[in-house]
């Protein structure tokens, strides 16, 4: 059998990725509610289907059949394009993510760059959604969202540059391939490349949580301050798209952390690499993110910005310099 032609293959992948993103959004909500329930000494969803597994489906139907209320005095264009603007870049980012060595929609050499290019668009969705709603809470939330994203993109990118310096490539598949051969070849434990690799991972993970507006950094939708933040005025599927976009972003952030630091689809003991390892690591990270949300209270916007500008960025820069120095010095010692 001939391999399918490129356009058909890409189309199949795109449909698959959209389904993946949608299912992820749906079942991460279920997982989130279940985990939250058990953290809080209750059961979580249980009525619809076994273990409440059909709950996301019912919620989805509810969201889709709900009337979309469009308030007066909004900006009709911005209000409507904001939710897709948040969701589409997130889904597009999946295109370059290698689920396994072969299971990747487009194995392009600039994959990492492309993901960050798309990731920067989602802040536009937040800004336009907040601004277009003409609601003061939404505008405050949008302003917060933007300053937060700008602040956290910098340490995140510096950390990624460190990684690129070590790996010499922007191709995600190639980065994973370099981590073959067991847990100590994962970049998080590559002490020889940079003794502060664990710190790099923590910076990256913190930043990706802040980038995706997850608690304890969910200032854009701090309900005790700003009601519902930038999606205060959205109802029905408008809100649903924001929601899906948010969860898609979480998946992207955790995928990147898995790929860059945790060896992607590589097995911890060097056996049977494949998509299952990628998914296991990915969902463990997501599970951590969910647990953090239900454990910590929310920071404030200035606490958040201080953390970024005063702690994360200096550390990331130091890390960058250290890596550069190590790259130059190592070959001199061990030629």
């Amino acid at each position: 059998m001939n391999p399918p032609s490129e356009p058909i293959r890409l189309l199949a992948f795109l449909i698959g990725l959209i389904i993946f993103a949608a299912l992820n959004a749906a079942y991460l909500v279920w997982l989130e509610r279940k985990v939250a329930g058990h953290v809080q000494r209750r059961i979580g969803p249980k009525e619809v289907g076994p273990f409440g597994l059909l709950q996301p489906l019912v919620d989805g139907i509810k969201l889709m059949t709900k009337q979309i209320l469009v308030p007066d005095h909004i900006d009709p264009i911005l209000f409507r394009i904001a939710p897709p603007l948040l969701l589409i870049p997130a889904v597009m980012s999946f295109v370059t993510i290698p689920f396994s060595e072969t299971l990747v929609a487009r194995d392009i050499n600039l994959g990492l760059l492309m993901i960050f290019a798309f990731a920067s668009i989602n802040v536009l969705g937040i800004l336009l959604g907040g601004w277009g709603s003409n609601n003061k809470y939404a505008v405050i939330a949008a302003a917060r969202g933007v300053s937060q994203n700008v602040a956290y993109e910098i340490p995140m990118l510096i950390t990624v540059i460190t990684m690129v310096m070590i790996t010499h490539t922007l191709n995600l598949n190639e980065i994973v391939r370099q981590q073959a051969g067991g847990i100590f070849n994962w970049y998080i434990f590559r002490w020889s490349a940079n003794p502060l690799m664990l710190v790099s991972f923590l910076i990256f993970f913190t930043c990706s949580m802040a980038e995706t507006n997850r608690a304890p950094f969910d200032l854009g939708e701090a309900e005790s301050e700003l009601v519902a933040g930038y999606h205060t005025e959205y109802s029905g599927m408008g809100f649903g798209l924001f929601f899906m976009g948010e969860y898609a972003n979480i998946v992207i952030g955790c995928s990147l952390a898995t790929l860059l630091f945790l060896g992607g689809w590589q097995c911890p003991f060097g056996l049977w690499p494949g998509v299952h390892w990628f998914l296991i690591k990915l969902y463990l990270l997501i599970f951590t993110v969910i647990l953090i949300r239900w454990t910590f209270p929310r920071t404030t916007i200035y606490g958040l910005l201080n953390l970024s500008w005063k702690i994360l960025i200096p550390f990331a820069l130091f890390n960058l310099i250290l890596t550069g120095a190590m790259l130059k010095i190592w070959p001199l010692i061990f030629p």
Partner: protein
Amino acid sequence: MSVLAQCDSKETFVLNLGPQHPATHGVLRVKLTMDGEYIRQAEPVLGYIHRMHEKMGENRTWAQFMPNTGRLDYLSALSYNHGYVLAVERAAAIEVPERAEYIRVITVELNRISSHLVWFGAFILDLGGFTPLLYAFDDREIILDLLQAVTGSRLTYCYFRFGGVYNDIEPDFITGTLAFIKRLRARMPMYHNLVTKNIILVKRLKDIGFVPAEMCRKYGATGPVLRGAGVAYDVRRAEPYSVYPELDFDIPTHPEGDSMARYLVRMDEIEQSMRIIEQACTKLPNGPVMAEKAPKIIKPAKGDYYAAVEAARGSFGVRLVSDGTNTPYRLKLRSPSYSNLSLFGEASRGMLLPDALALMGSLDLVIPEIDR
């Protein structure tokens, strides 16, 4: 019209916080004049659930007003019961049997713990932490069950009577209460480890939201707000009533005056209330729970009477003016949250919105009690 167009030349805007807002815990509205996220001016707007309890009091007999007192502060209704019966007993010179006094103290302190537990959960909820609320409610549920067995209701109690309490407690209640205290004692370290020592919580509360003692005095703030500013004022000690003089407890104070101090004061008060209940349970004498000579129809002598109790939120006072008939001539309810909230405008000036909401949460407001 865009949001920016609504701003005047000084670049401020008015943010309408409430009457329905997740952080106001009820129908409180605060008109905030904001400069970015900084508060220039905050003006609480009250009265959304004003029910004119004081007029109701003038239209019914002394005893008929009892249920109203349970509807002022839905979280620590028994303290308000207590304040009112104390005032009427003072006016009508009714003696209360000792057993009834002890039962009053036990139930009021249980109610205080449950009120502080709700505050604890809701306050962390204001700060964005969801989970402690569920744990606090888990503990509170036991108190509500205990009190339900005695009083017949779970929230808006009407248990005290002029000259005693409505009915005697069962031995089960005492064992249940002591078991609950044992359980809560074991859980307090968990609360402190998970919440009090949480770095984010400390960063959000420490050195933020100052309410100094002088500001408390100018606005008449009492209760944990005043004790969080370092003043050891507690009506239970200042004007001893009931059997509090016979019980050994401390007045927790923290001198810093910030949100963290008020948080710690309330957490310490839970411990002190547990001590009080334990002592009261051991000392509980036998005897009647209702004064035998308590008159059926109350007609206090002409004149003014005042009685204050330490409610969960501060000093609750009842001023009675009697004209010698079977209805009050004037009945003034001095509610603590009312004075505590009145300082919010001054205390929140120049603060950031999230910090101001942390300050508001640390005042522990119950809106029906403010609006009366």
